[in-house]
């Protein structure tokens, strides 16, 4: 059960409640008017009854259409086999300090860097009040050594440079986006350039010391 089902359930309950309230209201009115007098114009009386029929028919029709549409709309979501690829397990035992690897997760690159003590120091001592998107380094990592980021520039979606030894790492020793010149630091935070946010941290957990599960 995902949230969408609850939403559907609530909508259906609301529609039934609406139907119940409206039909009770109209029915009571019809009964009252019928009881009142015979002086009532018979045409008007049938008009009231027809309102009831109209509203209840339309409501049932609307419920039917909504229920019919639901599977079709739902079918456009990622299929089960696509969802099954939503997590990636990575062996990180071969990465030396200072090295980075790129893995693919949900069709996007994920950067995994084992940081050197110098880089960790740099990231920790930065005064975050001066940053465009202030965030403590400790909030961005689970283990100090390991920095795991979604490698998509928050400006317009390019993949920043800085993974290879030969790449430009930008002014802050982290990553540098060649598209529009955004500089990221050793915690993946935006420091200079047009990007509005820090590089995103994907959901991940360490299964053991050498394996990380992303997603």
């Amino acid at each position: 059960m995902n949230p969408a089902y609850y939403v559907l359930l609530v909508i259906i309950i609301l529609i039934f409640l609406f139907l119940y309230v409206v039909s009770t209201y109209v029915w009571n009115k019809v009964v009252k008017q019928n009881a009142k007098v015979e002086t009532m114009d018979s045409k008007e009386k049938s008009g009231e009854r027809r309102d009831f029929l109209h509203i209840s028919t339309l409501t049932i029709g609307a419920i039917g259409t909504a229920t019919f549409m639901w599977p079709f709309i739902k079918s456009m979501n990622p299929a089960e086999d696509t969802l099954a690829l939503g997590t990636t397990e990575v062996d990180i035992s071969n990465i030396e300090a200072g090295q980075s690897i790129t893995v693919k997760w949900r069709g996007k690159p994920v950067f995994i860097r084992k940081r050197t003590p110098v880089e960790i120091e740099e990231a920790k001592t930065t005064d975050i009040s001066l940053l465009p998107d202030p965030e403590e380094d400790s909030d961005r990592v689970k283990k100090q050594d390991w920095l795991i980021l979604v490698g998509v520039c928050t400006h317009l979606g390019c993949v920043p440079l800085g993974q290879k030894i030969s790449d430009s790492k930008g002014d802050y020793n982290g990553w540098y986006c060649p598209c529009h010149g955004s500089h990221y630091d050793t915690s993946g935070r935006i420091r200079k350039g047009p990007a509005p946010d820090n590089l995103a941290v994907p959901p991940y957990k360490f299964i053991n010391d050498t394996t990380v599960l992303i997603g």
Partner: protein
Amino acid sequence: MENKNNSKKYKNPFLNWIEYRLPIISYFQKEYGDYPMPKNANYFWSFGALLTICLVVMIISGIFLAMYYTPHIDMAFESTERIMRDVSYGWLIRYIHSNGASFFFIVVYVHMIRSMYYGSFKYPRELNWILGVFIYFIMMVTAFLGYTLPWGQMSYWAATVITNLFSAIPFVGDGIKTWLLGDYTVGNATLNRFFALHYVLPFVIFGVVALHVAAVHVHGSNNPAGIDVKEPKDTVKFYPYMLIKDTLAFCVFGIVISAVIFFGPNLMAEVDNYIPADPLVTPAHIVPNWYLAPFYAILRAVPDKLGGVLLMFAAIVILFIIPWLDRSKIRSCSFRPFYKWLMILFFINFFILGYVGLKPATGNYLIIARIGVLYYFCFLLIISPFMPRFEKSIILPESISDIYKKNK
């Protein structure tokens, strides 16, 4: 102009604005609101509306299936299975589509039987009948193309058998077959073009349906008595009487089709189609879809290749000229005491042909098929044109309202 006065006929100014520029509101009011239906129309007259709904449901479910289907010989079967197993509600959409096709034909057969029994095809509705048979023909083509797409054993061999029909044409047959397939046998090129055509033909059907409906609205609907509407009291307005009747018919239809979709989705399917296509092995027993089976029986009833193909196409083409074969001025079979039973026998015969078409073409089945073919053509070419000379019909009622007076 007179219309100027009419440009302010609705309370809502927006409707007036539209109406003045495009009189679509008054068109719908005229054709689906005040449209006079003969008041003796029975539930057989709801099947036209059901067909329209079927077509729309088929188009919608087909579009959603096409979002996940891959028309390639290596991936078609897997992508279909992926729809069944992995895509959210893919199983439902595919079952709606496959059973929808069967029900589309059930409803279209009832619609055609209605039309023949009550003489709806006669003057002045001949063109309507021709358009209808044309729709039926494109439906059969579309259904056949769609049956190929899942690329199971039945798909592959149905495509092979049907396209081989064209090789029966003398001299140019093989050339035409190769041209249709785009390959020496049914291959990837064939699957691709079948998918392209299967996607587009329903929209062609939709267009012809629009003409079909427009044509019936010119002279109005026929009725079970088959006599012309003479005065307003012979009719009721489409809204609300017919709309509510069609809605009820649709509800019943919906229950039946849902029951099949949810509890017996493979009732009308062949199990062999869940085996991936294999060009090297033909299944022991190839069967067409039930709705094409009568014509398949006609094809197999003839011991000659070209003869069988010609007779099968003749069986379809002859439907187009039915309005000129039945010479009787009386429309409804209700007033033709003897012809009525021959007509009913024709319908039963058609479904017996269908049953035989699903069985192996040997022994008794072959004999039944031959008798069936004989009656099919005898009825249309001999009984229909000459019956009016011998049959004494029951006297027709004066008008539709008269029918109700007599009952009282």
